[in-house]
């Protein structure tokens, strides 16, 4: 027993020692594995984990740049950013929305629109993005919320800047508006630069110059802990504010024009001929851009959209109207230039015109004709027969040529987008769009601006400005210059289209003289207008038929206008520039279903050339029915 025990003892020592050595070697293998793992994490993948670690604690908060301001040519502010308080919600901190909305509604009244807007936004944003529940809190509401803030952990009141348009409705068709960025726009913007931006230009100048107005996003680099709380600010890159835009608009003239046109549907475009600067761009009726900034309910939007007056419709750029008689100076220029017409040529107007091999009568607007007319009288008294004849002699090709060189049928290139090109009708155009051949009668009608030809108020204004310039064309534009934060200026120099050149520059004077006769000659269609004017002006009036008189069995337009339903009445048009010798303003006016274009144009031009009107001396026009207090005759 004893012997065995001793033997076992030695055996046991050897066994345990051996096992210890084996265990130690296994330990070393495991430790080697551990160190290899550490090397893999800390040496091989160090860069990856450093990035991940930084992503954990470094937080880049984008800072929204201040949107550029918009001024008119006299430095009057047209679009600014004003501080407001908004009530914002962090969705992932809210457990039950209906309860939260009901509770907060007791403190800050919420409209149905606020709630529906909020719910729309809620679907479009991530759970940790702040979403605005209500804009423009009053001081009292802010105070009430502060007292109750502890009850609403996911809600906060934020001070922020919001776009404000001091002139409200007056410039909405020009400036457009900003609105919340929608999903469609999200696809087209640079997500980095807009990471802090909530609003984007939706229309007008705000949209066209979005890139310039927006500026460059800034950043705040903060150290964050695991709960997302910023511990300290490490670095700050200031945002670069957007450029300020100085427009060519004269907001006083704009307001005067708007006031003159108010109550009507129509458009006024005023251009400085020398430069192409747009002085006024009015489309009536208009709308309040603020409702678009704040966001409105679908019903409100539908109401604006379906209103018969179409307030959202920018008539100055998109309104397509027949040229009517304002086409005549352009036709006359082509007649003179081509040698087909001459100032000396006279024609007897019996009140009708008939093509050589046709039984169809084309009537003059004046039942018994103008008698013997030459070019000057034809323009001054707007003789249709003369232009039927001239148009027939010129042919549609020449008519189209002259309209095209004046820029009709094309986009003017205004820095706003949105505009429509209008139509310079040609046989090819008619075949393509209507599928029928061009008749000589179409040429005759085109010569007096009826038929298929369509133009916009902007094109008419640019065209008459070209006449005022004796052929030199400028691209109509709204931006005068951009101003950087350091007050450096970048002037807008749009590329000008090729000028209209005539073989004999005297032809300009012939036509311009004829346009002057419109108001100076007793036979002129604007004689009453002219009598009042202390400045010289070249003018062409016009009337565009809304409904064919034949179709309604009417022979006398003038006599029956007042008895027609309003929407069937003729549009009145006018193009003009003044003063004749050194034009400072060229204007196009269109008033739908009304004959007031002349009196409205007169008010606008008087305002610009003389000064604010003496309201008491000029009896105000107008009610909707078109009966006029100052009783200007309808011009043709």
């Amino acid at each position, binding site marked *: 027993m004893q012997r065995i025990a001793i033997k076992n003892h030695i055996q046991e020592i050897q066994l*345990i020692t051996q096992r*210890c050595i084996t265990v130690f070697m296994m330990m070393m293998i495991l430790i080697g594995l551990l160190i290899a793992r550490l090397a893999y994490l800390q040496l091989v993948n160090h860069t990856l984990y450093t990035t991940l*670690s930084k992503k954990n604690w470094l937080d880049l908060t984008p800072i929204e740049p201040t949107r550029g301001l918009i001024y008119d040519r006299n430095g009057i502010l047209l679009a600014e950013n004003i501080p407001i308080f908004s009530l914002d919600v962090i969705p992932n901190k809210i457990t039950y929305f209906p309860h939260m909305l009901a509770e907060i509604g007791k403190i800050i009244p919420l409209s149905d629109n606020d709630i529906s807007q909020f719910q729309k936004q809620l679907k479009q944003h991530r759970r940790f993005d702040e979403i605005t529940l209500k804009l423009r809190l009053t001081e009292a509401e802010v105070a009430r919320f502060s007292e109750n803030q502890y009850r609403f952990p996911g809600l906060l009141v934020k001070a922020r800047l919001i776009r404000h348009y001091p002139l409200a409705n007056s410039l909405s068709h020009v400036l457009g508006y900003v609105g919340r960025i929608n999903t469609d726009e999200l696809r087209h913007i640079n997500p980095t630069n807009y990471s802090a931006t909530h609003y984007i230009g939706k229309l007008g100048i705000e949209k066209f110059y979005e890139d310039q107005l927006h500026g460059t996003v800034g950043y705040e680099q903060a150290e964050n802990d695991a709960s997302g709380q910023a511990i300290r600010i490490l670095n700050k890159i200031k945002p670069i504010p957007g450029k300020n835009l100085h427009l060519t608009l004269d907001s006083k003239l704009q307001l005067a024009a708007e006031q003159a046109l108010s109550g009507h549907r129509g458009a006024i475009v005023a251009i400085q001929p020398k430069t192409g600067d747009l002085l006024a761009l009015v489309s009536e009726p208009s709308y309040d851009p603020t409702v678009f900034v704040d966001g409105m309910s679908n019903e409100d939007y539908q109401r604006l959209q379906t209103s018969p007056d179409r307030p959202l419709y920018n008539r100055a750029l998109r309104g397509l109207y027949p040229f009517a008689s304002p086409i005549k100076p352009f036709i006359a220029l082509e007649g003179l230039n081509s040698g087909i017409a001459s100032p000396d040529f006279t024609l007897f107007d019996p009140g009708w015109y008939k093509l050589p091999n046709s039984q169809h009568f084309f009537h003059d607007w004046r039942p018994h004709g103008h008698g013997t007319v030459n070019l000057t009288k034809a323009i001054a008294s707007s003789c249709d027969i003369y232009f039927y004849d001239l148009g027939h002699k010129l042919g549609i090709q020449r008519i189209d040529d002259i309209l095209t060189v004046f820029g009709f049928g094309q986009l003017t290139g205004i820095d706003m987008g949105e505009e429509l090109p209008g139509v310079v009708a040609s046989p090819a155009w008619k075949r393509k769009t209507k599928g029928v051949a061009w008749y000589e009668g179409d040429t005759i009608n085109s010569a007096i601006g009826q038929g298929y030809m369509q133009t916009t108020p902007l094109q008419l204004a640019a065209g008459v400005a070209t006449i005022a310039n004796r052929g030199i064309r400028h691209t109509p534009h709204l931006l005068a210059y951009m101003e950087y934060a350091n007050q450096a200026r970048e002037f807008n120099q749009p590329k000008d289209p090729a000028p209209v050149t005539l073989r004999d520059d005297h032809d300009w004077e012939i036509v311009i003289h004829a346009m002057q006769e419109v108001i100076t000659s007793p036979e002129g269609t604007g004689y009453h207008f002219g009598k009042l004017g202390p400045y010289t002006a070249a003018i062409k009036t016009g009337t565009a038929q809304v409904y064919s008189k034949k179709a309604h069995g009417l022979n006398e337009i003038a006599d029956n206008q007042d008895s027609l339903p309003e929407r069937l009445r003729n549009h009145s048009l006018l193009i003009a520039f003044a003063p004749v010798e050194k034009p400072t303003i060229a204007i196009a006016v269109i008033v739908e279903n009304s004959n007031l274009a002349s009196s409205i144009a007169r008010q606008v031009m008087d305002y610009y050339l003389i000064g604010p009107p003496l309201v008491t001396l000029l009896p105000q026009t107008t009610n909707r029915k078109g009966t006029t207090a100052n009783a200007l005759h309808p011009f043709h």
Partner: protein
Amino acid sequence: MPFIHFIDRMRKPERSSQYRTFWQYIHIDIGLLIGILLLTFLGLLILYSSSNQNIHVVNQQMIHIGLAFGVLFLFAQIPPMTYRRWAFWIYIISLILLIAVSLIGHVGKGAARWLTIGYVRFQPSEMMKLAIPMFLAWHYHKIHLPLTLRTVMVSAVIILIPALLTAKQPDLGTAILLVIAGGSVLLLAGLSWYVMTAFIAILGLSGPAVWYLLHDYQRQRVLTFLNPERDPLGAGYHIIQSKIAIGSGGLFGKGWLNGTQSHLHFLPEHSTDFIFAVCGEEFGFLGSVILITLFMAIIMRGLYITIKAQDTFCRLLAGSLTITFFISFFINMGMVTGILPVVGLPLPLVSYGGSSMITLMASFGILMSIQTHRKLLTT
């Protein structure tokens, strides 16, 4: 084997042990003590940083360490003979307490681990860490080695009863350590490699059965270990953040007190179970290797004491305690670096906390007792 010469060389300084030194007189092994002191000091440095320079936490930990050293000193004074004599009863009492805790245990953190007697709170599973190897070493001391199959079966029952009770508390980490503590005695006692392989195979095959025994959060941990990205903000968050902390440390680390993962609270449990990640982040690869080296120095001293021990009981007990210490820090480091699943085990001597520190120091006390109570025999 060249390793034998290494061990022979380690024997050399002991030649002069013909008389008792001061350290032997107070039963302290100076080599082990230096290793433990260095490690606890380094641990306090890391803890100071991981607790966001909370001196209160450090003071608390220093109290734990002080108490633990008291226990160490106490356990070092008791001769191995006494442990052997009481081994059976220590195991029985521990088992009764463990059963008691599962019946009337105080529920803390969703796990019943504590037993309160008067003002003292016991964790019987911690006692078991010492009781199991003591019992097995005592048992094998009496019988002839190598082991018979019957002995192995009996040992398995002795290990598995407390291990299963602990796993049910539920404390998977400690349960694993109990199996390791008992298994290591078997290993040292010459358990056949075939039996061991078979046992591991059975363990692997019983995996699905174990799956049903696991608590839901334990299953989550296993799943998350297999794929941390499965739940990056939930259960996988720990391991992802831990890997980020270690990986971002690089070769030299971000510097003491400069770790962002811990200081900004991205790393969870950065003062307890995941404190090694703080070390990796702030001291880098080099710092981690130094820490591992310190641990391994203690292991080597423990194995040295094992080999030098004078009887089978002492050898088996010392070896088992050393292996258990190794496994406990290896599991922790493995889990923090993402090569092992997350089981709630602290990094011994470094993690904040008192109870496991006391047990650990007690085991070091036993090691010192074994080393310093040697009879001056030449074997």
